[in-house]
């Protein structure tokens, strides 16, 4: 078991023949991900990386039976690609693209919800179920199989944390990069619900950051509904107010969205909050021992 994706997931890559998509699709295939084809409008009929290319998602889904899509489409067209995927019946849409206008995502997310699809991202590294399927740009070698679920708003910090978990002698069941934009598809709560019901996942590491209140919503959920151990770290404790810290959503607006208020809410919910980013691995190890 794991969540959302596994070795049986059939994956289509949108924007398949582009440079980034080509490189990362190759990496995903090498990892063992079952990529069944891709879509690049106007290039239908070609073979790319040994897989068929289609003009539309509708045709691609019909011909391949795919249930997951991975999006590498440029920002101006990415929301359209998400809407195309969910309209074609894709159940898990992973959008890597950074820089999508928030007004576009707002609408694409609503359509995904209406169609019962899970949108991961945008502006995220993707999802990996260790040693089964990698759908995104995460470096596969870091993720050794194990019992820790990982949810993170950031890319390289996800790898850093997975590495710490592995160095602590543990491993990862599924890791999901949910993205750092102001509006994202799947949030901490959505994934906590899935990890709660996943027998393979013993504990969860959640990595948040400044901006918005998703971590506070998650804290409220954990307090009432989540009994597996949770270790958290919130990045941006030293970030100044009103400045965007790399991610479009990483900004303290007025006095809202600070790391301090999130840490407080998580602690109140019984979450073990790592006081610095270097001790997350040790913290989860300690909790699982006791």
């Amino acid at each position, binding site marked *: 078991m794991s969540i959302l994706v596994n070795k049986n997931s059939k994956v289509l890559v949108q924007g398949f023949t582009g440079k980034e998509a080509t490189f990362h699709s190759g990496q995903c295939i090498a990892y063992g991900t079952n990529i069944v084809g891709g879509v690049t409008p106007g290039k239908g009929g070609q073979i790319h990386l040994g897989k068929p290319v289609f003009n539309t998602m509708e045709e691609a889904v019909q011909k391949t039976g795919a249930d997951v899509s991975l999006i590498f489409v440029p920002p101006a067209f990415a929301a359209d690609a998400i809407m195309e995927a969910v309209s074609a019946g894709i159940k898990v849409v992973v959008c890597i693209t950074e820089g999508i206008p928030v007004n576009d995502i707002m609408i694409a997310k609503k359509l995904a919800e209406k169609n019962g699809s899970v949108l991961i991202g945008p502006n995220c590294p993707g999802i990996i179920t260790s040693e089964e399927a990698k759908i995104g740009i995460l470096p596969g070698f870091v993720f050794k199989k194990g019992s820790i679920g990982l949810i993170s708003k950031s890319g390289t910090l996800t790898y850093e944390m997975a590495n710490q978990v592995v160095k602590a002698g543990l491993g990862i069941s599924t890791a999901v990069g949910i993205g750092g934009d102001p509006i994202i598809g799947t949030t901490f709560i959505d994934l906590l619900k899935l990890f709660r019901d996943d027998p393979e996942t013993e504990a969860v590491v959640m990595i948040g950051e400044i901006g918005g209140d998703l971590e506070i919503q998650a804290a409220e959920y954990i307090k009432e509904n989540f009994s597996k151990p949770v270790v958290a770290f919130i990045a941006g404790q*030293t970030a100044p107010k009103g400045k*965007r810290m790399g991610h479009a959503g990483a900004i303290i607006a007025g006095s809202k969205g600070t*790391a301090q208020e999130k840490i407080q809410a998580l602690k109140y919910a019984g979450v073990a909050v790592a006081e610095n980013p270097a001790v997350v691995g040790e913290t989860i190890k300690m909790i699982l021992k006791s």
Partner: protein
Amino acid sequence: MNIHEYQAKQIFAKYSVPIPKGKMIEKPEDARNAALEIGGNIWAVKAQIHAGGRGKGGGVKLARSLEEVEKYASEILEMTLITHQTGPAGKVVKKVYIEGGVNIKKEFYLGMVLDRAQEMPVMMASTEGGVEIEKVAAETPEKIIKVAIDPLIGFRSFHARQLAFGLNLSKPQIKEFALFASALYDAYKDNDANLVEINPLVLTADDKFIALDGKMGFDDNALFRNPEIAAMKDLDEEEPAELEAAKYDLNYVKLDGDVGCMVNGAGLAMSTMDIIKHEGGEPANFLDVGGGASAETVAKGFEIILKDPNVKAIFVNIFGGIVRCDRIANGIIEAAKVTNVKIPVIVRLDGTNALEASDILRSADIENIITAVDFADGARKAVNAAKGVTK
């Protein structure tokens, strides 16, 4: 991206959101003609900087004659305006907006912002106009009326009525308000704004609404399709080093400490600042060189960090995922030579080929490049180096 009041009002005018007559000037000698062109016998002379609190800081004056317009314009232009939002250094005023006087019956607040929790824009109105809205929100939140606007249905009459009845407006006023609010929604939506604020929104003696102030902010990710908005960017309002970094697709934010940071990825970059603080130091900056981190971006990163004279040590913290650490190590050595870094550079490389990378760094034997075994070790060494402590 933020813009000035006069620019927000240009956008308002385009969408038929009523504004007083006004003109932006950059030279005091243009003040008199601007006032004559506007007409009337009372004018507001307003400093144009992005920060709020201009009135309290002495950046907004009411002139009752053409002589006073000239006098205030020359006083405000080139003054260093300090408000609660500018920081102690203040902001030099380069532009002044001269605006015709308005006959005020009552002041309101009207704003719109992207509500991240509800995932849609929210329009907010209050009878408490002309005062700090954050204060109203904290002390008397019941005086702020809010309506969330689903982007799939847009702004409807019922939204306007909900706000207008909340403001206790009379029947003819409600009609006027609905027109105003609907036009404001269009100005917000069409330009991919994420903030618009009118404080105060004024009800005039003849029961018309008019925007006495105006503030707008925009989604940076949507500037590619709003070239008119992108062209409104005032470079005087931006930190020069941040602009320079942006040219190379680097994300840089200047801070006040002395430990420079260069990191790949925004989350890891924020965490690096946090751990420096945790180890007793102060970060000098946020710098995300992107997931990849090539020799070229690292060199540019050094250059930008070194422009800050406070920096006494640099912590390079890279997690090599797809990108290999040995390549980054070579990049760092090359970049350190090119940019002639004299201060200690603490390097922590982890991930793909991390061992090879530390061999490369060690055998290069550059005196001021110090390798770290892990995240915490790197932070500790960097903080100590900035304090002048060796080992």
